[in-house]
């Protein structure tokens, strides 16, 4: 059990940063740059873990990233990696999809508390934008997930994967997939639905205020969390992975799709993106739900 969990976390950490490196590289090529080496994100993470934070704003400021990281780790540990067998399942037999969906919001809550305690009004403003966007993203995603749960007759992720033996859900419920994928773009922090944490707009966002090892923790948890979301999408719509190679291929395809879309579009403002998410993807998801 302990070893299983450790391997899961190491896999999530490595894949998360690998994909982050690839993302930086691919975007650079799209922009006509060379970009950093793929391993740069690993170096950054390890370097930052050895650095200190220069300014302290009290204990809540530190507790924020820790709650955030706990949320990300719990999310990844409640999603089984493979669609068969007893290895790499973590705690998933003690939970289900609803538990995972709710652990996904524990991170933003910790982040919000940490940033709020800092006292910079712009930080709190960014948090509200982030949380507002989160509502918008959750709406189509939740409807899609509800559709899948009703269709498979269970909320257990392993059983949802098992129900896709014949046809993947992406084929069986294409409308639900489209709606979920649009939300997924935002969950992955890709345009057009992203809220940037750093200087671009929310100038005093989380990634700016946290420095040193807390920045490292924030980055690591976001890498692990991204992997958890890829994993969840693969499990829900692509039938899960038979083995680790399959896992890499499927998550990579999904990741690539998100990166390409993200690179093509510009960013919408929060109200624009939520407005859009409440309209088109939500309607697509509701139509998809009718067909279940």
């Amino acid at each position: 059990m302990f070893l299983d969990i450790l391997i899961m976390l190491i896999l999530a950490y490595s894949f998360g940063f690998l994909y982050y490196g690839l993302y930086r590289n691919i975007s650079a090529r799209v922009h006509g740059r060379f970009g950093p080496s793929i391993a740069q994100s690993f170096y950054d993470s390890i370097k930052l873990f050895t650095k200190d934070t220069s300014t302290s704003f009290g204990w809540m400021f530190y507790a924020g990233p820790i709650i955030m990281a706990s949320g990300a780790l719990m999310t990844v540990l409640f999603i089984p990696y493979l669609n068969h067998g007893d290895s790499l399942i973590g705690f998933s037999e003690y939970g289900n999809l609803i538990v995972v969906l709710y652990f996904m919001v524990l991170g933003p809550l910790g982040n919000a508390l940490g940033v709020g305690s800092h006292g910079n009004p712009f930080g709190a403003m960014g948090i509200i934008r982030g949380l507002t966007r989160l509502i918008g993203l959750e709406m189509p995603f939740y409807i899609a997930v509800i559709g899948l749960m009703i269709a498979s007759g269970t909320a257990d992720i392993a059983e949802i994967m098992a129900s896709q033996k014949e046809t993947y859900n992406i084929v069986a419920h294409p409308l639900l997939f489209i709606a979920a994928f649009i939300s997924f773009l935002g969950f992955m922090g890709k345009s057009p639905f992203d809220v940037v944490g750093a200087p671009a707009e929310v100038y005093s966002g989380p990634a700016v205020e946290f420095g040193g090892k807390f920045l490292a923790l924030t980055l690591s948890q976001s890498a692990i969390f991204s992997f958890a979301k890829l994993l969840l999408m693969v499990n829900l719509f692509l039938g899960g992975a038979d083995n680790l190679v399959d896992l890499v291929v499927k998550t990579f395809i999904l990741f690539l799709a998100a990166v390409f879309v993200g690179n093509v579009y510009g960013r919408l403002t929060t109200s624009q993106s939520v407005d859009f998410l409440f309209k088109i993807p939500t309607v697509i998801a509701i139509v998809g739900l009718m067909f279940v």
Partner: protein
Amino acid sequence: MFNFEITPLGNMFFGMSLLVFVSLFFVKNRDRDLMLHSLLLGSLAMIFYASDFITLFVGWEIMGWSSYFIIARTADVKTLQKYIVFNLGAAFALLGAIILIYGATGSFIYSEIDFSVVPKGLGIVISVLLLVAIFVKSGVMPFHYWVVDSYDKSNHIFSAILSAIISKVGIFAFILIFFRIITTEYLQESIFDIVAWLGVITSIAATFKAINEDEAKRLLAYSSIAQLGYIITILAVFGSVSIEGALYHTVVHTFVKLLLFINVAAIIYVSRESRFDRLGGLLYKYPINFILLVVGIIALAGVPPLAGFSSKFLIYTVLLEEKRGLLLAAVMFSSASAFLYSYKLVYGIYLGQRTSDSVDSYPKIPVSFYIPQIIGVLVLVVLGTTPGVIVPAFNSILTSIGMESVAYESIFVLGSNFASFNGGVIMGALGIIFVVILLFFVKLKNRAVRARDRFDISYCGEIPKADVNLHYGYGMGKELSRIGLVKLILKNSSHTLWKRISQIFADASNIMQRVYNISAQSVGLLIFTFFTILLFVGVK
């Protein structure tokens, strides 16, 4: 005259009320009225243990009036008018329904009422009347009009009682009436679909109104309306698991709101402020109160590992099993949006920047304020770790009202065939992960310098001046009104509806007045005409 019976359902509701009242007994309160509070508790006992409708109605009335006099100690006339009009309306609706039930079945006693003899049309009328009474107490839109003002204007202890206990009387009446007495099939097909949607629309609208609110107690009042909306929705779906979910959420909501209202009350007690733009930055002044509030909002938002998740989980699985996808989507939407007002509450009071220079001179929070809060936290943590622990109690309630009992595996596991989760593992795993990360970070040496003062922040490359407002308590959530759907919700309010209805009543009373104000000759003529008609009718 009055008939009582001891039922598991009554025991549960009265036990909760007793716990809440006792925990609040010690809290410092400037406007305490022991006589009225004990009258209120007595009336609750009367409602929860009644075995006939007359006892229920008398208890209902005493509850309404004793609450009225408690609210009247602090509230203004407008609030009281709203309260009394709505609660009298509810009482009349209840009385009307009771009389109709007696007329149709010939009995006031629960166990003797055979509702199957009542014709369908009359059955629906009776049910609608009863639902109106329930909706007023639980604050389902559009009958919530009195709720927010009364919660806000009554003293801080009584706000907690209103939200934690009085609003649950509606839930009790719903379970008692529609699961034990009126159990006809046609109701489920006709009006309960509408009731389910009414509940969820209530919760969505109230959630966004709460986000837009600038005052802590009003925010909590709207949140209360939203949470009761879920309970009504889940009850209207019918079935054993739906009652289980509703009862679970009732328990959780009672203690969450007890915790949150008393937490806010403590802040209002020491600072005499309740607006978010005049509070803020109190985290390091009152750290224990802050942690208690965070526990409360985690449970309110339904995030694991606390009990708020357990009840939300049950609500979701019921709706999934019944294949009510759209209803569930709406519930989840409201539940996800609840995050924003939860954050606004904690940010507005404790996080951000101090807005007043006198914060340092605020007194300590009296210890008595912690008693109800700690009781609330204990219940939430215990029900989060061992979510199954109250399922046997719910089963005894279910069997006592003639429903099937629900699945029970162990105290750690909650759920049905559809899905289940292990609260112990979740709490344990999260605790271990949190502590491991914490220890890892505590162990690393940190030479961070404490920020010098509140202006030591990055602020557009400048140092903010003392008169710059650095607390985001006021505007928070306002920008949501740029989103089309939210704008639609915020623009509309039940105020217009009730204004129009009150106008109709005013017009009608004007016409009545004209009849009474006519001259003596006309009255004579009227009397003459009346007797003439009577004579003709008699001759015939």
